């Protein structure tokens, strides 16, 4: 049984300017000890997916489908039971380390609160001891426990956020663009850290990013989202070296590779307006290979050589 199983997940937001279809029937799974990369541009629904799994979507969101964690459906769990699962069985690291820690609480108190709330520590001292130990392994000096978030650098804050997500040893960690707000060298440090965590803790992860290169470095499998739908899903190495979906291919080619060709091959056009997504294949207005059929019919998600792809040209 998969650790996480997302089945036919639909999410819509009601906004003043209309209904936005953020996710339209996405299904995927994360196995024990596996890192699943989720790649897409803004508006693809990748962050919505992360928030839907841990059920933190804004109230304006309508959710259909199921999210099974270890067989329990999180979408229908009572609030109090869900609360006990959050942090202990599934945790999340957010994009901006500058705003994801409570500015008026010391680092140590974040850990104490979390551990006492979940009964993982009996005393303050016990919690601080465990937190100090973990932080040192994550490259943050123990003394930082006494500091407030603003006294830490961005990289240290993100390490703390990762520490908070790991300390209760959850089965699944959702990482939502965790390096986007960081500078290049700090980003590298965090990537290295994530790889190390993956090796040492064997934690399963939903690794959300817009950067294919990042996924190639840390993930085992990758799910490519386009306009709220799954375009392609498979082993990272295979997807990167031999993309099946034209969108995946275009995305890979649009980023210049240092040392490679200096020619730029942008994806033409604009991402779709999700209040009114295009009919048929959602990528067809930007796809160089689109046919009449792509304009009319939605392509089904089919298996091709151990991979899933939603494209008429591949079925």
């Amino acid at each position, binding site marked *: 049984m998969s650790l996480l199983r997302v089945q036919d997940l639909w999410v819509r*937001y009601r906004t*003043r300017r209309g209904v*936005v279809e*953020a996710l339209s029937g996405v299904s995927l799974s994360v196995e024990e000890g596996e890192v699943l990369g989720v790649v897409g541009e803004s508006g693809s629904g990748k*962050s*919505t997916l992360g928030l839907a799994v841990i059920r933190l979507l*804004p109230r*304006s969101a309508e959710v259909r489908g199921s999210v099974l964690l270890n067989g329990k459906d999180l979408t229908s769990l009572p609030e109090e039971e869900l609360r006990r699962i959050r942090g202990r069985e599934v945790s999340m690291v957010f994009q901006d380390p500058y705003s994801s820690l409570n500015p008026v609480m010391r680092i140590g108190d974040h850990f104490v609160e979390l551990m006492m709330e979940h009964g993982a520590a009996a005393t303050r001292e016990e919690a601080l001891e465990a937190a100090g130990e973990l932080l040192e392994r994550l490259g943050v000096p123990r003394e930082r426990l006494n500091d407030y978030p603003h006294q830490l650098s961005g990289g240290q804050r993100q390490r703390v956020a990762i520490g908070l997500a790991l300390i209760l040893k959850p089965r699944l960690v959702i990482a939502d663009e965790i390096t986007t707000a960081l500078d290049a060298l700090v980003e590298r440090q965090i990537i290295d850290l994530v790889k190390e965590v993956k090796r040492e803790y064997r934690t399963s992860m939903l690794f959300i990013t817009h950067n294919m290169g990042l996924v190639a470095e840390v993930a085992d499998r990758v799910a490519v989202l386009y306009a709220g739908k799954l375009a392609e899903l498979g082993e990272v190495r295979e997807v990167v070296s031999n993309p099946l979906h034209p969108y995946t291919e275009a995305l890979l080619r649009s980023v210049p590779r240092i040392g490679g060709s200096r020619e730029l091959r942008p994806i033409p056009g604009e991402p779709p307006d999700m209040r009114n997504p295009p009919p048929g294949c959602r990528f067809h207005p930007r796809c160089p290979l689109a046919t009449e059929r792509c304009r009319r019919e939605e392509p089904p998600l089919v298996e091709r050589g151990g991979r899933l792809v939603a494209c008429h040209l591949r079925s």
Partner: protein
Amino acid sequence: MRLPRGFAEWGLAVGTALVALFVALALAGESLVGQLAVSNVVVVDGRVYEVPPLLPPGSRLTVGGRELVFIMGTDQLGRDVFARVVSGARFVLTVALLSTAISAALGTILGLLSGYVGGFLDRVLSLVMDSMYAFPGLILAIAIAALLGVGVLNISMAIAVVYIPSYYRMVRGVVLSLKSAPFVEAAVIAGASPWSIVTRHILPNVVPQIVSLLPVSFADAIITEAGLTFLGLGIEPPTPDWGFDLNKGRQFFLAGYWWIGVFPGLMIILSVLGFLLVGESLNELLNPRKVEA
């Protein structure tokens, strides 16, 4: 038509209705109720009748074959409370309009100057404005109103002085943040003159903020006006005015003649509420606070 949803839409609906009512009263109220607002004398077919004072609400009086109804009763001088309440809208709304216009205009000009020119001028103006802002405005208004004496313009000026700093601070703040905004810097790089930058880039972005402050400061002006006239300042009897009538009614309150004061007070509340609701709802509808998607 659908029913309004949420606080903002309901607020806008109720507020607009109230504002419309009071604007209508201010424009036409006096002509609707005639002389009874300022005197207790009714003339029917050339004959003069005096209305007795302190009639309770709902009293009926037959004079010269005509039946008069005093739905809000009569005051200590026999004047129709309803008529006074209805025609009282004009004075207070005029004062609120005038004072808001004066404070908005002066505050904006000073704020623009201070924010854009900066330097010593900014320091001095800021010190003066901040001192006034922190100081109890009502006391300043009382002092000015007491010194200037009665009259629409005088009381308006007294109130305006209190609210100039609010506009000044807001405008100055916006100008300071706009001054370093990339689109203003782009204009500088393109070679734009300060005048062009102020008129084409800064003012158009300041105006909406001023406009959003207007209804609420209008509501504040009504309250302040009522406070001043309640203290007997700025108004000359027998001009109908809610604050003034409330003060007169106050002496009869505990004696049981509650209607003289209660109705003008209600009018103050409803008119303030109207403008307040319009202002707050509009702000919320036009600048929805971000909801993370």
